[in-house]
């Protein structure tokens, strides 16, 4: 399966990405994940201010009659949600690394970044799954 992996992003084994800028992480799902999920019909908007723990449940997403979980790459507080997904959840399919971002998180523990994969490690991990 051909997938796009962007340099400069961090990745999880559950196929989420995080783009870190200062103390904020913008979070979404990877090209691998969106291809496996298929046509996304709904992203459940999480409450702003919710506290997240690294690798624990962030929110739910629906595609092709399946309700799946998205996990948070990093601990912190939800600072923003991409409300464009309310009307256009397909942005996650069309533009998973940019317009299809899901939340922004105020990072509570920057040392957790070491638990994430860089682009090279994630490319290798995803290739090993096929």
């Amino acid at each position, binding site marked *: 399966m051909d997938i796009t992996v962007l340099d400069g992003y961090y990745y999880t084994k559950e*196929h989420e990405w995080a783009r870190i800028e200062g103390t904020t992480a913008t979070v979404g799902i990877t090209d*691998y*994940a969106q*291809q*496996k*999920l*298929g*046509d996304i*019909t*709904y992203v*459940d*908007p*999480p*409450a702003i201010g*919710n506290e997240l723990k690294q690798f624990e*449940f*962030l*929110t*739910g997403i*629906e*595609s*092709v*009659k*399946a*309700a*799946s*979980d998205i996990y948070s790459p990093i601990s912190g507080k939800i600072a923003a949600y991409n409300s464009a997904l309310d009307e256009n959840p397909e942005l996650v399919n069309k533009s998973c690394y940019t317009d299809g971002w899901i939340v922004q998180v105020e990072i509570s523990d920057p040392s957790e970044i070491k638990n994430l994969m860089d682009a090279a490690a994630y490319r290798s991990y995803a290739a*090993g*799954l*096929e």
Partner: protein
Amino acid sequence: MQPLRARFVPYRCASGFENMAADEYLISCYQRYRVPVLRIYGWDPPSISLGRYQKAACLHVDACRSDSVNIVRRVTGGGAIFHFSEVTYSLAVGERDLGKGAVSIKDSFGILNGFIIEAYHMLGLDASYAKDSAVRGAAAGSSQPFCFAGNEEFDILIRGKKIGGNAQRRTEGVIFQHGSIPLTIDADRIMRYFRGTIDFDNFTCLEELLSRKVPPYDVIKVLPKAFSAVMKYECHEKDFSPSEKKDITFIMKNRYRADSWMKDRRGYAHEERQAGLAQ
């Protein structure tokens, strides 16, 4: 080589709330023992199940209430179903049971719905996937508030009409799927409970296809056989123990009978933590 083992929870009728709690319990059961679980059940009283993120606005809620039709929210995606005269199955397996890596949603429906197709074959019916059907395959890919009226690639068609419906929940490497096998369709009641136009020519039921009354037992007896034949698991019957029934009752009271679960979905993660039911 020893055949792979799966647990089979035998047929029983229960309320929609209990059925959904028992289905959710299967997920934790798989997480604990790593053994696939197949369950077959019926609905008493009749109920309507909504998809996990579906709005109840598609229903005439007052009409449901006046007829004592319970409305429950599933843990799975997809559209609403009126569970009246049907046999329902549920299944929890691991992603690793289906393949090496992450199995796509479509592929997993393709694999898991295979045993339902085999069950229809055992009943003497020529069932196939919508994507393979000359009649409706080209139109596959539409969803509807009323599940049976939708049409996805891996929906099952017989004589060009959709039969039943299937939906999934994915969590922590577990694939949970449940689905309906309709014995009859009560168009009058469906029109009474669902808003909007439903094209009844698009879907069918066993009674129409077999031109006879079909008792639930006819389906109940073929489902475990079809599962074993297609999925290559040996089914070992084991009903819920008293301790498991306690767990199911807990889930039922705290989630499926809770107003917070029934209301249209928003801020789910927060509610789930509040209920202490996070998986």
